[in-house]
Structure formats: C-alpha cells, structure tokens
C-alpha cells in the first residue's frame, strides 16, 4: 500500500537507480527532502550531485534543467509549490516547449510540484495552473488522480522525450493509499481511463475531482442514475478518442474541474464534444467548476469555492432529468 506521495517518491527513486541520467533539482529537495518530503532520503542515497538544492530561482532552476536535458540528462525540476511556476514561466513556454520544433533540441524534463486546493493554503499555495499551459504546443500536462497512476505517469514522464508538467495534487498526497504495482511500469501519457463505468451520463474530469466525481456517482446510483467517470490523466495531449467514446455512449457530458470555470480546461473538452459528438448529445454540455475568484484561504470560503460530491450530484441529477 502506497500513498499518492509515496508512489511519486518510489517512481523517482526507482528510476534514479535504473537511469543515471535522472537527477532532481529544486529548492530544499536535498537537505530537507522537499517541503512535502517527496524526496526524503534522496540526498543520502544519491548524493548532492544528483539531488541539487538550488537558490530560490525558478527561472534559474528550470533553465538549468532545460540545459542539462539538451546534454543527455533527464532532469526533474521540483517547484516547492506549483504556484511558483509563474516565476519560471518564460523558460517553459518559450524555451522548453518550442525547442525541438525550432532547431531539433529535444527537452526531456519533468517539472513537478504540489498543486491544487483543499488544504487552506490561500491564493498562493492552492492554484491549479494547468490552463496557463493548455495553449502551448510542445508541452505535456499530466494530472494523476491515484497512487498507481502517479507512479506510472511519473515513470512515463521521466522517460518522455518532451517536456512534461507534472501536477501533483497536494490534497491527495497523504489521503489516498492503494496497492501500487511494484517495480517498473508506465502509464501512457495521453490516455484517459474509465475510473467508473456507467451508462447514462459521462463525467470528464481529472486530479482530485475524480474522487469527488466518483463519490457523486455513487450518491446518485441509488437514485437509478448510472454515471461513467472518465479520468483524463493527461490534459495535453488530450485523449479525444476516449472523451468521445464515453459521450457518444451516454449522450450527456458533465465536465468537472478544480481550475476556475472561465477559461479552464473544460472549455477545450466542451469544444471537442461540441464538434465531434454533436449528433450524439441529448443535453447541454455542463461544467462544474469553482467560481472565477482566487482560491480563498478560510475553510468556509474554500469549501464554498471548491466543487464537491454534492454539487456534482446536483448537476448529474439535472442532466439526468433533462
């Protein structure tokens, strides 16, 4: 049994043992084992050449990861909180994403860090930054929802020839535990997963919202509504085929995400459905997502902000009635 956090740790640790090209750099990843202790014990095991405590310099450390990747390494850059990704933004969207296309220099890096809300972290320690990158060709965005996927996707991300943004949901770090296959396996980047099978309504979601969606699906199943939950696992590239498969089957699409509503990844999903599953739709395409505000800090505010099983169930019911 591994927690979500332990699964990420194990994936990196095993891959570092297997592949000497893998190294980790970030703030406090060595001495402290990372703010969330994801790299705990790594410094002792792999030494300061492969576990590098950097200055507080997101542009510097992401840049260094890019440079090292061009010279044969497989760097993993940890951001202490994913919210700081804005401080290294330019390196990601302008160097890493475009390098292979422009001149052939592939940039196999993983940029990872704790994302998401639910732990009262306030506006700067709770963000879901995926939308910043949804319109940036060349990037991959990975958003595991389970320990098994966290491990399999981390291994896939490290081995991927292209830059991967790996969003770890901090709410799940120690809350989820499951049997995770031992040893080496990968979860393909770009493939969604049916997290719960159903017939009447399709929920398309990812990250922590997979669990809220399953909970909601369980709630309404007593009422005779059968809900399928599709866990995207990867936002870029997006698994259009599986999205269309489930929506064509059920004719009803509910998109759920933790990123705020306007401009969130739900738009792309809706566009895919609206273009390619139009004839199969029996109801409007519906999004459940937070309001367009920063993530507030105080527990009642944050709870009101976040989608949850009850809110999702309401939308399921309304869709079922439609």
């Amino acid at each position: 049994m591994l927690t979500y956090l332990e699964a990420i740790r194990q994936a990196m640790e095993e891959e570092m043992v297997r592949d000497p090209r893998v190294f980790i750099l970030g703030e406090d990843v060595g001495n402290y084992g990372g703010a969330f202790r994801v790299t705990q014990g790594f410094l002792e095991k792999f030494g300061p050449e492969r576990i590098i405590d950097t200055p507080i310099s997101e542009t510097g450390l992401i840049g260094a990861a890019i440079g090292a990747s061009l010279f044969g390494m497989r760097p993993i850059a940890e951001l202490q909180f994913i919210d700081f990704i804005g401080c290294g933004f330019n390196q990601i969207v302008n160097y890493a994403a475009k390098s292979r296309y422009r001149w052939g220099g592939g940039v196999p890096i993983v940029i990872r860090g704790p994302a998401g809300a639910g732990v009262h972290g306030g506006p700067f320690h709770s963000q879901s930054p995926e939308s910043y990158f949804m319109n940036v060709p060349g990037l991959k965005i990975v958003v595991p929802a389970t320990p098994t996927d966290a491990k399999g996707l981390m291994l896939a991300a490290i081995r991927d020839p292209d830059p991967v943004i790996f969003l770890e949901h901090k709410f799940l770090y120690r809350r989820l535990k499951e049997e995770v296959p031992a040893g080496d396996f990968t979860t393909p980047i770009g493939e969604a997963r049916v997290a719960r099978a159903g017939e009447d309504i399709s929920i398309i979601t990812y990250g922590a919202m997979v669990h809220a969606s399953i909970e909601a699906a369980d709630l309404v199943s007593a009422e005779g509504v059968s809900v399928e939950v599709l866990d995207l696992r990867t936002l870029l590239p997006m698994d259009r085929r599986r999205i269309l498969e489930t929506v064509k089957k059920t004719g009803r699409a509910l998109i759920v995400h933790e990123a705020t509503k306007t401009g969130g990844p739900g738009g792309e999903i809706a566009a895919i459905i609206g273009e390619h599953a139009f004839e199969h739709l029996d109801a409007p395409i519906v999004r459940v997502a937070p309001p367009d505000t920063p993530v507030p800090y105080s527990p009642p505010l944050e709870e009101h902000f976040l989608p949850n099983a009850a809110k999702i169930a309401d939308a399921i019911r309304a869709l079922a009635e439609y």
Partner: protein
Amino acid sequence: MTTEKPPADRLTRGQLLELYYFLKLNRGLEEKLSNLYRQGKVVGGLYRSLGQEACSIGSAYALERGDIFTPLIRNLGAILVRGGSPHDIFCQYMAKAASPTRGRDLNVHFGWLSPEGSMPSVISMLGDMIPILTGAVMAERMNGRRTVALTWIGDGGASTGAFHEGLNLACVQKAPLVLIVENNGWAYSTPTSRQTANTNFVDRATAYGCFGAQVDGNDVLAVYDATRTAIQRARQGLGPTLIEALTMRMKGHAEHDDMKYVPKEMVDKWAQRDPIALFERFLLGVGIGTNLLQAIATRVDQELTTELASAESSPMPADDSGMTDVYFGSTAEDPTPEIVRKSRKARGL
C-alpha cells in the same frame, strides 16, 4: 511633511521604551500564535521571527508619516510598529471574518493604503515587492511627495530575478527605496552558502550603484540607525540603500520544521545574542529600571490576551462571502450550471 527621526543616541527615553515595547509585543504575539498553533487553531502554517525581531522593529521605527513599507513573513514586528493590531494578525492566522482580508488570504498577507502611511500587501512570491515598491515611490515622487519605501528580502529571496530587476530599476531611477537584506543564514533548509557564492550581500550595493551598509541585525539601535540614514538619503533624492542585516532564524522555517539541518553550535552561538536580551542590557545600562521593563512586559501580555480573546471569539466568514471584488464593484457569478438552477427552480427550491 514629517518630523525627522533622531539618531539612535538621541532617542528619548520614551522612544527607547517604545522600541522595547514593540520588541516584546512582536515576540509575545508570536508566542501566543505558537500556542494557538499547538492547539490547532491556526489555519495553515506559522512562521516565526524569533531572534530576528530587531531587524523589523528597528527599521520600521525609522519610517515617518506617509512612508510605505511591505513586510515579508518574518517582518510581523514592522506591522506592529506601523500601527497594525495584534487582533488583525490573530484573525488573519485564524482565518476569521474580521481579518483584514476577510479570510481570503493568510498571515501577514494583508495591507492598507492611507495618507498616514501605507502597507501594500505582500504576496508569496519572493522578490516581487521590490519592483512594486519602486513603482509606488516613483508615483509618489511624480505627485510631488517625498515618500520613502522600505521592504525586506531574505538571503534566499535575494536569488530571485524580481530582486534583481527591482533593485536595478530602483537604482537607475534613484527611487527612494530602502531594501534590507535580512541575512539569517538560512532559506528554509538551504544555507546561505548554497544560495550564493558571495554571502556578503552588501557587496551587491556596488554592483547596482546604490548605497550599502552592513549592520548587526540583532542590535535594534544599529538597525534603526542604518535605516534612518538610508531613509534620509532616499528622501533627499540620493537613491536606494541596500542594508544587509546579519541575524539568525532561531526557529524552523515554520512551526512544523524542527530545523535538524542547523548545526547546534550555530544555534547556541546566536542564542547568546538574543536581540531582546541585548537591548534589555542596553536599557539597564542607560539607567532604565527592571521594574519599568517588567511593566511593559505585563502591559504587552495584557493587551495580547485581550486582543486574542476578542479574535478567538469572532466568527469565521460566511461561506458565500468570498465572491466579491474580483473586479471593482462586482460579484463573481455563481458557477452553478444553468440546468441545475432551472431544475431547482422547477422543484421550488
């Protein structure tokens, strides 16, 4: 516009005691917060400035009416000096409705704008306040005011691009900015020697072409004096000063951090140089009696106890109170899907 602050050796007895009051208030407030934290009443983390209080108190005390400052997480003391109340801080840390941010943001992440003196709110991303305060005092200058801005940056935060772009801009603009590099030896678990190859931050003043000073950050009067001089120069239009204050973080990065990574000798050495103990010795030396100091300590404790009680008993925010003011004068739309609202309506809800 302002009455200039005197040099440290001409501070009145009352002013010295005021400094002492703020030092005790800062420490006492944080101790109360530690208690709350242990009781599980702090929502989120708690960041202490134990051992560094003089860096905030001494410097903020040199500001004058109308001046601008932005504290970082370890400059809580500066907020107190500039009129912030322990009640507000308690409420911030407990995420209460009565907190200055109405529970929207945490700890020292709040601010105010006032002709008396402003505190633009800090954000988490280190370094960002340096260009922001530079712009603030450029605006003040355009409006014919001789306002000075003060902010701090850690030995760690000084590695950010925002530090560089901000300080460089301030220097080329000769903006009235005072920047204190609070070199406390650590950035979370990272020692200063792994943050930069030259840990003598004052050397950067030359590089940027501004004034520089290095000061004992545990000596509240030394910090006061260096800041006062810098503020005077800034107000005269002579441009920024970078002050390096040498100090030590005597607690972990936050309360959860036992700072095992800090060598014991380092802690022991600095424990000898506690800024409050040092200042008490000084005060006794200039003939201020223990009873006076004791009275201040008692007053501080009483005030804090009252403010804490009031903060503790105040309510959490209403759950739907976080929807306003994303844009000026407007409320964010309820994201509930249209079909849900229609179905509720149909069911008479």
